[in-house]
């Protein structure tokens, strides 16, 4: 039995692959920034918020964490138009990715916040800092530093999950691979190349985030 693999005809379509990679990176970047911000806000509300807010945040987190991303995506893209909210595939993808990342980020960041030594908060209080100042300047930076590896892993999971967005015609990498193989019938080769590209993206993203976190978010 001879298996003939033809990677050349797939690589010949490199402009489409590059476009797909660009979209994947774009979706991931926006979702990461917004998702982390939302995650921090929700984590704060789970620790300090009033009961109603805590209950809402808790339900939100449990709902997202116990349903598949693809169902969340379909709900946003197909389900919301029934309520009058029509979204482009890209918009729906970003929204679904933001919602997904923020739910996981909330729990991770909350663990970091709750691990803050009591003495740090007392020192902040003794220096007459207001609660929101204590949260932003004393509690959050060390908390983010502590949970950064877990957050980075979660961001990479969301990046890999963006491959599902091709199912609603978002022009990211898996969609590009699908398009290529529908033309040249080299399905296995197309997906191998896409998979290796994802693997490279995951490794690069981990390096980037481990460099950016200390630099921009928490000091060293």
């Amino acid at each position, binding site marked *: *039995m001879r*298996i003939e693999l033809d990677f050349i005809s797939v690589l010949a379509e490199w402009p489409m692959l590059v476009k797909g990679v660009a979209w994947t990176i774009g979706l991931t970047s926006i979702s990461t920034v917004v998702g982390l911000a939302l995650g921090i806000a929700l984590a704060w509300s789970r620790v300090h918020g009033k009961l109603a807010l805590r209950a809402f945040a808790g339900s939100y987190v*449990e*709902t997202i*964490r*116990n*349903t*598949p*991303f*693809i*169902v*969340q995506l*379909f*709900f946003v893209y*197909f*389900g*919301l*138009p*029934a*309520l009058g909210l029509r979204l482009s595939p890209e918009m729906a993808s970003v929204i679904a990715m933001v919602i997904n990342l923020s739910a996981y980020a909330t729990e991770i960041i909350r663990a970091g916040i709750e691990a803050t030594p009591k003495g740090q908060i007392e020192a902040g209080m003794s220096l007459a800092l207001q609660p929101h100042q204590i949260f932003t300047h004393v509690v959050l930076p060390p908390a983010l530093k502590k949970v950064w590896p877990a957050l980075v892993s979660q961001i*990479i999971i969301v990046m*890999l*999950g963006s*491959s*599902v967005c091709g*199912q609603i015609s978002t022009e990211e990498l*898996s969609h590009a691979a699908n398009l290529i193989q529908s033309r040249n019938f080299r*399905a*296995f080769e197309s*997906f*191998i190349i*896409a*998979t290796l590209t*994802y*693997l490279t993206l*995951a*490794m690069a993203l981990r390096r980037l985030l481990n460099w950016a976190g200390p630099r921009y978010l928490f000091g060293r």
Partner: protein
Amino acid sequence: MVDFSLWDIFRNLLLALRWTVALSLIAFVGGGFMGLLLLLARLSQSKVLQIFVKAYVQVFQGTPLLMQLFLAYFGMALIGIETSAWLAASVALTLYTSAFLAEIWRGCVEAIPKGQWEASQSLALSFSEQLRYVILPQAFKIAIPPTVGFLVQVIKGTALASVIGFVELTKAGTMITNATFKPFLVYSCVAILYFALCFPVSYFAKHLERKVKRGHA
């Protein structure tokens, strides 16, 4: 166009739910066995085996599950195996699960204090005896909560099998949406059913985690 009642929709989804559960169990049990073998290879003295398992885990954790499903489906067809969506999904999810469980369990073994290894070594136990009688029993206890927790990931992972045509809960949802033109209602039901499956498992895993923590305090 036939008008579908809520119960019609729910009934069809429940029928498809069986396949979600079946696929989840196949992947979890099969992946568990494979994961154990991978763990033993990782813990062995052979550098080659260690590197293999490391690379295996890195590949499965660093690539999308969707791609793994596609590769299983088209890859098996390429080498002449008659592939159904069902078979491809089972293979892909089993391999995926084995990688993640092997890594979770490795973490649990590494959490065992070095003193345990040293003590059993000093008692002249061989490496496999150390593993079997001292290390793995302890690692097993702390491995239960995250392993149960990963079952939730497996259940959610089965939803992607819909993309290669396997008729589980998500695929049924898509088909029913196309028939009823009620996407909001149908996908809400789909989400509720996944939640009904996953939430008890998540809660149980958290409960187990609390029990383990208390046991050690």
